[in-house]
């Protein structure tokens, strides 16, 4: 996934599309941000300067679907610490999945994730009926029970849907447009692009070659699959920790 932060307007449509697509439970009062479930979470960042030099950017953060744990082992931190093998990485698709019926809710994976991308069901699942909210529920996604951890799945059910369609049409390969996530599809400015990073024909694999492409907390070596693009140095600087003098600004690429 590649997210162009220069295009992102901070509208939050990605958050809403994700919640609607994935049967995310809500609460009557969602103001407690420490306990609400937001698989896609929009952060607001600023360059810290006073007016008139203030700049603001928005930072959508889904699950990074990390490839490594930071010490070179070929599975994300959350997968290596899960006690009941309730989360696994599929090295074919690169998606880190969660088995809700196996999760015992020990929350060790939440402690291991540096991005805060994992969410625990502190309450029983709640879809307020009589407000029409039950109409967005999708039969393709299993709702979660209380006491289990959930997170962004890169809309894995859409991959299943596309593969089923392809199988019915007697082919094995998927076109680029056939599998995309709800957030990428819903983004009104097309700031989110989704595709196969290993496929050189997909847009994402070309976009990550840009000198302005970066990943969140890259120095931790978690090898996330979500890339960001920003021409602004201060945005790139906020995506990782740098000791004085370590950050190298990207000179404007000409041509």
């Amino acid at each position, binding site marked *: 996934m590649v997210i162009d932060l220069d295009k992102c307007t901070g509208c939050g449509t990605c958050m809403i599309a994700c919640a609607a697509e994935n049967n995310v439970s809500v609460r009557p009062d969602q103001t407690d941000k420490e306990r609400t479930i937001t698989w896609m979470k929009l*952060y607001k960042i600023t360059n810290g300067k006073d007016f008139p030099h203030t700049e603001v950017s928005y930072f959508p953060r889904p699950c990074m679907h990390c490839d490594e*744990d930071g*010490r070179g082992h070929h599975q994300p931190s959350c997968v*290596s610490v899960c006690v009941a093998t309730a989360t696994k990485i599929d090295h074919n698709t690169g998606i880190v999945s969660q088995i809700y019926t196996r999760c015992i809710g*020990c929350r060790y994976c939440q*402690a291991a994730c540096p991005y805060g991308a994992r969410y625990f069901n*502190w309450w029983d699942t709640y879809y307020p009926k009589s407000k029409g909210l039950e109409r967005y529920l999708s039969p393709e996604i299993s709702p979660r029970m*209380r006491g289990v951890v959930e997170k962004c799945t890169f809309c894995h059910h859409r991959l299943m849907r596309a593969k089923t369609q392809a199988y019915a049409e007697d082919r094995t390969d998927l076109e680029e447009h056939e599998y995309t996530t709800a957030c990428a599809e819903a983004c009104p400015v097309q700031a989110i692009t989704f595709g196969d990073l290993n496929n050189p024909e997909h847009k994402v694999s070309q976009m990550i070659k840009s000198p302005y492409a970066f990943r969140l907390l890259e*120095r931790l070596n978690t090898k996330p699959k979500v890339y960001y693009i920003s021409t602004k140095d201060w945005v790139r600087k906020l995506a990782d*920790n740098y000791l004085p003098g370590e950050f190298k600004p990207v000179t404007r690429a000409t041509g």
Partner: protein
Amino acid sequence: MDSPLLPEGVKRCPTTTFFFWTLPWLALLAWGGLSAFLCLWKGLNQTNMSNVFAFALWIVFDLAVIALGAGAFFTGFLTYIIGKGELKNVINAAVIIGFICYSGAMGMLGIDIGQPIRGWFIFWHANIHSMLVEVSFCITCYLMVLGIEFIPLILRNRQLDKIRELHIFGHSLHEIMAVFAATGTFLSFFHQGSLGGMFGVLYARPFAAREGFYIWPWTFFLFILSAIAAGPCFTILCTKLAEKISRKKLVPDNAIQLLAKISAWLLSIYMVLKIADTLGWIYGVVPRAGLKFIDFYRDGPYGIWLVVCEIVIFGIIPAIILMFPKARQHQGWLITACLLNCTGIVLNRFVFIIVTLAIPVMPFDRFWSYLPTWQEWGIAMAVIGYGFLLFSAAYRYLPVFPQERELNPVTE
């Protein structure tokens, strides 16, 4: 009223006094029972845990009591494997303390996980790469061993001892106690270490992550060392408390002094290694993540005072006190040093759990604070109430301290 149950040749307070003694601990248990019921019925939203504080008071308590309960396995190792005869006078008490700590921790964990009924998945669908799986297996097996070590003591109750089968069974168990002590030592070594390993392997959290040896981060070895340094001190403290409350001497001084001396050496070695590890972390892991050591201590109440407290006040100072025989033999200094030592270990566990989670990793994330709810305190206090109750009942009805008669001759 319950005099047939009391051990022979020792004085115990009247039954009504004992009943009133149990009331505050029963109240704590009741508070805990209510809290547990609420958490199981309504869910973990009864706590102040959140997606930021996935681990909170209960995990801190778990790790703290397991570290303090290490006196059980270590005293068992010294008594049955190394053969330190003087510790026979304190091994029963150590086993009871260990049993209380581990069974209490298991109870707390049952409430802590989101789906307690699925708890057996840890064993059935074990992910062997996870440190927590290692912890769970070893703690469960070790609790079995502690139970087995506790049974001979229970069977020496005056009424139970009269039953021939139980009498012989208890003695048979005691005959091979070295086998169980050795198994317990092996299991304890691994779970104390894995509890440290749990945090050292959080490679994506620079505050907790550590280098290590093969799959074991340095915290693995540091946690074992700190547990065996603090465990004997906790045993000393509990024994001294029992002596204070019962107003009689229960354990001869040589046992206490031996535990204190061993604790002194272990604590000193631990402090040297802890300082080395901290320096290695400050100059290794931390700058590699693009951070400075001081970055971790800028926000909230978790400042540099934590490091000073853990290493100097609750680490180096008790080590120095315990190293001097004159200070060890002085009751006041001994108890002070033991208290400081145990507090230091609890602080160490607290820092690795709460401060690790409070400090944001992403630069634009914020620091979060946490305070437990009354339900969380209820469960934690229930373990303390359970501990007092079980130890009191054991002291009253079982010959926990072998030298009690000799040290307190009952004048007819």
